[in-house]
């Protein structure tokens, strides 16, 4: 019985395995710099970590379209922060207070990630913030594709925080 289960588990895991290995992410996150001071009153204590990964389009052995993770250098830019991250890497991003005192309830600016690899390929992705406990379902990088799910109570009061992962596809 145990053997049967092990074989079944291996089959499931094998079927879900990514065609290309992911790269290891160092534990220590990279920080960012604030470029505007007046906005800092909106920033609350603590940070969240977002893992930045860069990919290039590739084909699997059986000819299917896929993406392969590669090292890259990524820059971050928003109205508030700047930074450079060697992908894959975690970056520590600020959290923002959500309150009706601020315009748009204090929603922080989106962050543009621009990544380039050693072969000159480049790509961009836009990272938006969401209230705590509210997660994106289909990704948050493209206008019109935003689908959010979570609890309304949390969404109305919790801090704004950036998503935990950003994926940049380079061409």
């Amino acid at each position, binding site marked *: 019985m145990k053997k049967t289960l092990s074989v079944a588990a291996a089959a499931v895991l094998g079927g879900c395995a990514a065609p290309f290995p992911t790269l290891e992410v160092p534990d220590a996150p990279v920080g960012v710099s604030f470029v505007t001071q007046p906005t800092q009153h909106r920033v609350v204590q603590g940070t969240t970590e977002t893992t930045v990964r860069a990919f290039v389009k590739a084909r699997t052995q059986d000819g299917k379209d896929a993406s392969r993770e590669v090292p890259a250098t990524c820059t971050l830019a*928003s*109205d508030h922060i700047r930074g450079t991250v060697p992908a894959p890497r975690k970056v520590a991003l600020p959290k923002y207070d959500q309150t009706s005192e601020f*315009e*748009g*309830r204090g*929603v*922080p*600016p*989106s962050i*543009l990630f621009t990544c380039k690899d050693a072969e000159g390929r480049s790509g*961009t992705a*836009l990272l*938006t*913030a*969401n*209230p705590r406990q*509210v997660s994106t379902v289909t990704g948050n990088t*493209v*206008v*019109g594709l*935003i*689908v*959010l*799910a*979570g*609890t*309304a*109570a949390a*969404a*109305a009061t919790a801090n704004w925080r950036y998503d935990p992962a950003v994926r940049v596809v380079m061409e």
Partner: protein
Amino acid sequence: MTRGAFAALAALAFAVGCDSAPDLGAPSRVDVISRAENQYQTRDMVIRAYVTDAAGKEAEVTGARCTLSSGLVRVRSLVTPGVAKVPTYLQGARFANRGKPPALTGTCSVNGRSTPVRIEATSAVRNTSVQSTSQSGTTTSTRLTSRLSPTLPWYYPGTRVVFGAAK
């Protein structure tokens, strides 16, 4: 084409086009005249044209030809119903006017008639509501996505071009 022929075309559109919208063709050509520093990815912009009869009823008409320009991009000869992949633009306080691009303006023409078109960029997104029900049974609904509008890229929304009733 004469006004009579246009009216006949409108009547035909009403007769055959009441239930299903015509399919979009291949994306029209878009030329970037000047690349703004905040130009971002492209997004489909759909334009459909309609004619109005004397009673004010609208019916979609195919084959209207539209030419639009914002000064940054030019959409050449989009034939309705048609789609063009036009750039979006990053929004932020670090850009002039928060990065909002100029409106796309131009004309659409069909059967000798033309009408001006103006498409303002927007960052609005449809509200997506989430609901939660507390233990006391109270249901709370919160709109989420509209709050993100100040942080999302500017884009040109799909547009309906309406030709008035033939006189």
